[in-house]
């Protein structure tokens, strides 16, 4: 490939990502320092032509002060991080043995088992959440079955609470945990496990002392792939959560669509990005660039 083609191959996607990924984040940062107004669009310009022809810079931290003054935002962040962390942990508890079992199954069967993990990922996210609503509702399928079996007298409160949100996140993001761990395990040298057994290590101990450390990369990638988007999740808390389920994605949505306070939403976005910056950077370091020379 000639130099000109190479430059174009890099420049085109690069320019796109700068324009539609980096620039928007910069604009969010700018608007977060703007005043909320009742105009359209509902924020005061940050730069204003002064009467003397110069440009006046009028940053305002009122949006950030709002975030600090109302404990709702703090609890929303706390709720998001807690729910994302717990869900990630549960995903790991389920996903690690699943990936292990797939990696140790017969080679000709592995592709089918992997495909079965990926399949739900290809089907609509919204529909999968909807499927759980049908199951968990007070008049839903689970409650109907439990009542008709006589196990409970009145419907269990399965939906519109934090439990349902955790369940929905684990369900939706499980494939993102299984696949990277499986990819790491698939490359593993299984004679190491045999060597451990030969040296007298019991299976469960071998699993934690040999297998787990060797697929650390997969576990880390899977955990970040679940944790980061889960922390910003909107659909699941909105559909499965209760009125008191506080997650920052949902608050941001409300701030933007219901309260129409764009500077506050922008400030929330910036706060969210700062909180998630470390995990995102960690993912970047290990994510795409597996081929680092």
């Amino acid at each position, binding site marked *: *490939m000639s130099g000109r083609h190479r430059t174009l*191959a*890099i420049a*085109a*996607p*690069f320019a*796109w*990502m700068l324009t*539609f*990924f980096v620039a*928007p984040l910069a604009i*969010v940062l700018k608007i977060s320092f703007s005043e909320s107004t009742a105009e359209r*669009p509902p924020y005061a310009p940050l730069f204003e032509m002064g009467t003397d022809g110069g440009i006046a810079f009028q940053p305002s931290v009122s949006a950030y002060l709002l975030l600090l003054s109302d404990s709702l935002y703090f609890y929303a962040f706390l709720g998001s991080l807690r729910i994302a962390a717990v869900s990630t942990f549960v995903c790991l508890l*389920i*996903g690690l*043995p699943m990936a*292990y*079992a797939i990696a*140790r*199954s017969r080679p000709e069967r592995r592709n089918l*088992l992997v495909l079965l993990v990926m399949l*739900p990922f*290809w*089907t*609509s*996210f*919204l*529909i*999968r959440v*909807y*499927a759980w609503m*049908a*199951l968990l*509702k007070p008049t*839903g*399928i689970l409650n*109907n079955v439990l009542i008709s079996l006589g196990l409970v007298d009145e419907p269990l409160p399965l939906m519109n609470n934090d439990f349902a949100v955790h369940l929905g996140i684990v*369900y939706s993001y499980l494939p993102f945990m*299984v696949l990277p761990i499986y990819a790491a395990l698939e490359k593993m040298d299984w004679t190491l496990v045999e060597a451990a057994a030969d040296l007298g290590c019991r299976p469960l101990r071998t699993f934690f002392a040999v297998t787990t450390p060797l697929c650390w990369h997969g576990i880390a990638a899977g955990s*970040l*792939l679940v944790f*980061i988007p889960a922390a*910003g*999740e909107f*659909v699941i808390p909105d*559909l499965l959560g209760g009125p008191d389920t506080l997650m920052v*994605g949902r608050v*941001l*949505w409300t701030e*933007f669509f219901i309260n129409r306070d*764009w500077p506050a939403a*922008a400030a929330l*976005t910036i706060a969210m990005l700062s909180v998630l910056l470390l995990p995102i950077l960690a993912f*970047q370091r290990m994510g*795409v*660039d*597996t*081929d*680092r*020379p």
Partner: protein
Amino acid sequence: MTAVRVGFPRILLGLGYAFLYAPIALLVIYSFNESRLVTVWGGFSTRWYGEVLANERIVDAAWLSLSIAAMSATVAVLLGTPAGFALARFGRFSGRTVFAGLLAAPLVMPEVITGLSLLLLFVGLEESIGWPNERGMATIVIAHVSFTMPYVAIVVQARLAGFDRNLEEAALDLGARPLAVLRSITLPLTAPAIVAGWLLSFTLSFDDLVIASFVTGPGATTLPMLIFSSVRLGLSPQINALATMMLVAVSLCLVVAAWMMGRRQTVSS
């Protein structure tokens, strides 16, 4: 390997699959429920399917979503394939780390952030250069390309990393000019990844609710937006039927794709 050692994970694997598939299976079963009460079985019926197909708002939204998905997947492939090449084949070019980082970040970026930031960009552009004067299909396509292109880049990069770098050199050595090498060696070998990347982008775009909700304008309601507003009000038998139809369509596409890839695989592995 003794049975005891595999037994425990294998049981978990079975439970894992049950967990993944049971809700979907129930959704499909109840889509054939006669009763208007979605969760109470009232006999077999296909009436809700008829109602979905007769519902103009659903059909219009579905068409809009399909068009958006097809367009954004195509653009994502056009931009993401060279990006995958750059990552896999260009060695250490300057800015590689930034480039790789820019492609990795959208994979985990929470949708609300992507959606809000893109909307603010579009509003800002409209203010300053007058475009886009109306948000809708075009802005959704741009937004979808931005978050699906990295997936294409990764799939293409993985495929390229998987085969011998000497292949292209061998073709050059045998007298093929660079363009002929691209046509006869590189593209045929990358094709499965490009197809997979297109399908992945298509699905992600077709499925997206949050980003589209931010960057859309009046008049452009995608299928997920329609489903979401309906689901927020409660369960609806029509949504069950629509969901089943979408599941069947996606499964069919995947079977065809897997079959094509399988054929490719025997050709190329």
